[in-house]
């Protein structure tokens, strides 16, 4: 059958089926529908809010500080005091045994550790070495902290089973205390708790930080651990991106180089990655000279070092007294001190004032050995059960044509362990 034009037109007109509700259902949430408009408005509000928040956090110091308030840099507790366990009490208050110490041969320290040959450049040299070792550009104080001589930079890894990071610590020391700047990547290393109410929020430059003044400790004779706000310990922790920092100051008001909260924050805020070393001065504390080389440079004299020392005892620091021109080399946290003084300026040239003195020979030289009468120390001056130390110390003195030498061994500093007269003489004869 042939179709007319009109019939064909009608067939074409009727070709598509009627539109079904499926299309409207499918587009029921399309952007132009009321539902779509509402959703778009909600998304716009979220987007704009996120954008503004990101701008606030990214562009303003307050924002960055706010963003980091969700972190807690210190482990905190609300308890200001808690009892010691019996094990801790026993450990703390039982006197250490006074076992005999054994001597071992040691190599005298090089003039400067590991190739830093100029005492004046000790800081830069040691920092550069550490940066190579840990493959990290360390952030440092822009200038030397006033009154704080640099002593050393160290790195620590595996400080606990749960902490895999590396801690790098730059240390400064005076006779009045210590100042250390630690840094690392990732999480803060585990640390003792602090009292939550003692944590103050501070701004370190553009970053949020936390400041704590005080610490937990055991008062003399106490069996409780108590928070003390006057513990002469101030700490600031903050983070700059992935890197954490901790600045710790152990020093009390009135002591040499004391830094208060404001000064510490200022010190932390002015840190840089590449300090200008041209204007850097290296202050030296005569009571805590860090290296043999620097001490030699200061005193203009030779300094003898022992080649025999009690096991596990190492150089602590060197002290120079310009008035008597005497050099004191301290080992083992001050328990063993070797004092070297020119004969013509020595104040002490004999031990005659001691009660029990005997003549001895140190090599070819004549000498004296004595023991001081027992003295009370802070450890046994409080009410029981304070640490019952009988603080005697042993002295060996001998002379050459030009020098007077003394070796002091103080048991109380060593917390156990004793050296005999013969061992002191052996140490004296090992001086090179």
């Amino acid at each position: 059958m042939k179709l007319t034009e009109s019939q064909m037109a009608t067939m074409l007109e009727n070709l598509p089926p009627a539109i079904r509700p499926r299309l409207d259902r499918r587009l029921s949430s399309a952007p132009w529908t009321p539902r779509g408009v509402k959703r778009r408005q909600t998304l716009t509000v979220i987007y704009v809010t996120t954008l503004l928040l990101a701008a606030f956090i990214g562009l303003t110091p307050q924002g960055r500080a706010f963003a980091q308030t969700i972190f807690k840099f210190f482990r905190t507790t609300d308890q200001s005091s808690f009892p010691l366990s019996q094990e801790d009490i026993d450990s703390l208050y039982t006197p250490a045994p006074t076992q005999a110490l054994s001597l071992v041969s040691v190599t005298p320290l090089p003039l400067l550790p590991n190739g830093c040959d100029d005492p004046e450049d000790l800081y830069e040299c040691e920092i550069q070495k550490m940066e190579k070792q840990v493959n990290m550009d360390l952030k440092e104080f822009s200038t030397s902290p006033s009154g704080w001589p640099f002593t050393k930079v160290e790195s620590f890894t595996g400080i606990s089973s749960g902490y895999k990071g590396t801690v790098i610590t730059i240390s400064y020391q005076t006779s009045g205390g210590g100042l250390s700047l630690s840094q690392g990547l990732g999480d803060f290393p585990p640390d003792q708790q602090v009292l939550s109410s003692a944590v103050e929020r501070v701004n370190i430059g553009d970053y949020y930080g936390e400041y704590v003044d005080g610490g937990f400790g055991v008062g003399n004779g106490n069996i409780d651990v108590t928070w003390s706000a006057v513990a002469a310990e101030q700490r600031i922790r903050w983070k700059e991106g992935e890197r954490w920092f901790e600045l710790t100051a152990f020093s009390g008001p009135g002591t040499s180089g004391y830094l208060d909260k404001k000064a510490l924050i200022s010190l932390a805020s002015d840190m840089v990655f590449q300090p200008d070393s041209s204007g850097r001065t290296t202050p030296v504390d005569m009571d805590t000279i860090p290296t043999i080389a620097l001490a030699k440079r200061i005193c203009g004299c030779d300094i003898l070092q022992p080649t025999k020392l009690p096991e596990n005892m190492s150089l602590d620091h060197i002290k120079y007294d310009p008035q008597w021109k005497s050099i004191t080399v301290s080992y083992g946290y001050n328990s063993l001190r070797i004092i070297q003084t020119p004969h013509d300026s020595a104040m002490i040239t004999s031990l005659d004032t001691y009660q029990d003195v005997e003549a001895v020979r140190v090599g070819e030289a004549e000498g004296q050995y004595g023991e001081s009468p027992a003295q009370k120390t802070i450890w046994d001056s409080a009410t029981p059960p304070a640490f019952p130390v009988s603080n005697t110390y042993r002295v060996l003195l001998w002379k050459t044509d030009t020098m007077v030498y003394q070796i002091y061994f103080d048991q109380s500093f060593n917390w156990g362990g004793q050296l005999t007269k013969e061992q002191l003489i052996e140490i004296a004869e090992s001086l090179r």
Partner: protein
Amino acid sequence: MNILQRFRQTAISAPTAFSEMYERNRVAVFRYIYSLMGGPADDAEDLTAETFIRAWKARHAFEGNVDSAIGWLLRIAKRVVIDNHRRNSVRRTSALQSDLKSETTTEEEFLRIQQGEELLNLLKDLPTEHREILILRYVLDWKVNQIATHVGLSENHVSVIIHRTLTNLRKQWTSSSVGKSHETH
């Protein structure tokens, strides 16, 4: 589209205006797509939805008023159909048969389905431009002058194309199996 165009106000940029345009043109767009692609209805509805979504995204570039939006929409729809054709070059099912349930189909309905399917096949064999003009004329019931404006040809040229295409289509229909079958009824 540059960043400034994104904020340009047009006759359909507001959701309410666009919604009105959708209501006014959705059937025409669906019929156009269905005829152009040859069904099935499900696919034609999907492409209709896609056409309006694309139109929404491009609404700030639209020139004209709501009344003239259909031409713009059909250009988008044609692009959508071409894109879809490239994606699915093989038809899976017969267009019309998939739109009706066979168990409820009467003999008369079955014949109508066959006729429709044959007509779609014949349309598919036409040159694209001729097919589109025929669809615009008879499926969407456009006037010749509207078609001429839309495809950019003279009215006379469009009239000639319509006449020749329709004549050709009628001849093919007569010689097709469905046409012959229809003749026997």
